[in-house]
């Protein structure tokens, strides 16, 4: 570990693209650590992984059963619902794979004072947050069931799959993960001002995404749908991009909606987080007593 730290040390005044080699080295390092964790304690690994797979599948099974019973949900046919459920599960899995260890649950790190652990590292905060939660081995087992469901749905859909369509799918998935993460950071930033009471706020917001992500949101009314595409942008996690990808939307421009939303919510999250950091810089963490215990 010590040797690894020295090897990945960044020269001073590095910025922007200059961090790319270090970013890749850190991803490789955290990937290896995840592999070590997986292979060192099989019981823990199996418990966590199997439970994550069960939870991931259970969160979409209810909607799948309803779709089978009612031969679709509203304008969505059964294969379309399958694709939607697979897409939703994949987005959750990717968020878990790329931003594990409470990076996506940022309110916990802020509220518990654990942000200090990241701030003392000799690298920018964004670089730590982009790499620390990378769990490619354990996380992939959560992504795979989602991908399987998506392929199952696609197989039964009359869609002509081209390279362009695949690129759109990948861009949409990345954008959906971006929206999901930004949404968590926007709400999680409250913990800068209310560390104790908002420590678990991301548990509530994440639970809402998990519960609502597989719902086809058509028929909710303009106000409700508008709310789920703005204040709580859950519609971008699966419903909106799937609408566009499987051709339920009339306009092809709808494909751009999720990437644009990711950009807007990403900027909003970054702005709020910076504001919170400024506050944190003044008051620091109140969660540790002088002898190290959490208050």
């Amino acid at each position, binding site marked *: 570990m010590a040797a690894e730290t020295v090897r990945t040390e960044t020269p001073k005044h590095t910025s922007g693209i200059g961090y790319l080699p270090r970013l890749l080295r850190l991803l490789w390092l955290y990937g290896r650590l995840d592999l070590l964790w997986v292979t060192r304690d099989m*019981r*823990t690994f199996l*418990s*966590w992984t199997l*439970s994550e797979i*069960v*939870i991931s599948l*259970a*969160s979409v*099974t*209810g909607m799948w*059963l*309803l779709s*089978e*019973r*009612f031969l679709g*949900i*509203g304008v969505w046919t059964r294969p379309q619902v399958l694709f939607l459920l697979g897409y939703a599960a994949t987005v959750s899995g990717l968020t878990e794979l790329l931003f594990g260890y409470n990076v996506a649950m940022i309110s916990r790190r802020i509220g518990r004072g654990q942000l200090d652990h990241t701030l003392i590292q000799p690298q920018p905060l964004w670089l730590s947050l982009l790499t620390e939660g990378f769990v490619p081995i354990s996380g992939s087992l959560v992504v795979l069931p989602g991908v399987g469901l998506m392929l199952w749905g696609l197989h039964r859909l009359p869609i002509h799959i081209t390279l362009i369509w695949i690129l759109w799918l990948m861009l949409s998935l990345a954008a959906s993960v971006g929206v999901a993460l930004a949404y968590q950071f926007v709400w999680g930033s*409250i913990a800068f001002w*209310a560390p*104790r*009471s*908002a420590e*678990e*706020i991301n548990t*509530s*917001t994440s*639970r*809402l995404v998990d*519960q*609502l992500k597989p*719902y*086809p*949101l*058509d*028929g*909710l*009314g303009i106000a*409700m749908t508008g709310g*789920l595409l703005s204040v*709580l942008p859950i519609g971008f996690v699966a419903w909106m991009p799937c609408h566009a990808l499987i051709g339920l939307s009339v306009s092809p421009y709808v494909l751009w909606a999720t990437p644009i939303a990711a950009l807007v919510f990403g900027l909003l999250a970054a702005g709020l987080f910076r504001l919170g950091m400024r506050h944190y810089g003044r008051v620091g963490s109140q969660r540790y007593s002088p002898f190290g*215990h*959490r208050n």
Partner: protein
Amino acid sequence: MLRKYTKTAAMTAASYFGESPLFLLDYALRLLRVIVLLSIWRVLFAGKGSVAGISLGAVLTYSLISETFAEQLYCQTDLISSFWNGSITTRYLRPMSVFSQFSVEMYGKWSVNFAVFSLPLLVCAPLFGVDPLPHSPLNGLLFLVSLALAVWVGLAIEFIFCALAVVWEMPAYAVERVRGAVSVLLSGAFIPLALMPWGIGRVFGWLPFAATASTPLRIYTGTGAPLPLMLAQLGWAIPLWLLAKRLWRINQEKMVSYGG
């Protein structure tokens, strides 16, 4: 005699307000989920009369009552958290059994949930186009009895899962999350078992999870015969409690807990 129990429940209820002023946000998010779920049912039943003998009105009432009594239909104590943070050790020093402590703390939380979320949801139900009343006054009365039995079964399941977490040395939160995910599906709290495809609802109806949610909800909405359903609850409660107590007695000394 009962003072120590009521005091413990009251302290837990008060801790909500003292430790987390943002807890109201949780309820707002829950309300949002209810509204979306009700809309989904309307979309599914559009143009259809009854499905499997259940009308749209009955399924809306079923979903609303399921959310109103969500805590009772899915009993969850702080036992798992206490494994995680190590506080379980001090529980053995208190002049109450471990089961009693965690149970009354759970009741304390319920009182807040009921006042802040359940009661307002029931009152506002007509605004969402849902009739919150039971199928008949008798059904309403039997629902309360069945709900008490459901809590009894639910608590037994909770303590069995916790004991198994100790036996297999499993990560506490993984056990809790799996139980939550599986229970919601198998208990009929989310989808009435009769509306599940391929007749799998009939299979799920024989599992103990159905006794924790499906049974009281069916009685409330008048979609099941109360007496056989409640007898089945009783049939699950007794062996499950015997099992829970036995598992706990045998395994509590194997408990590994750490935290701080």
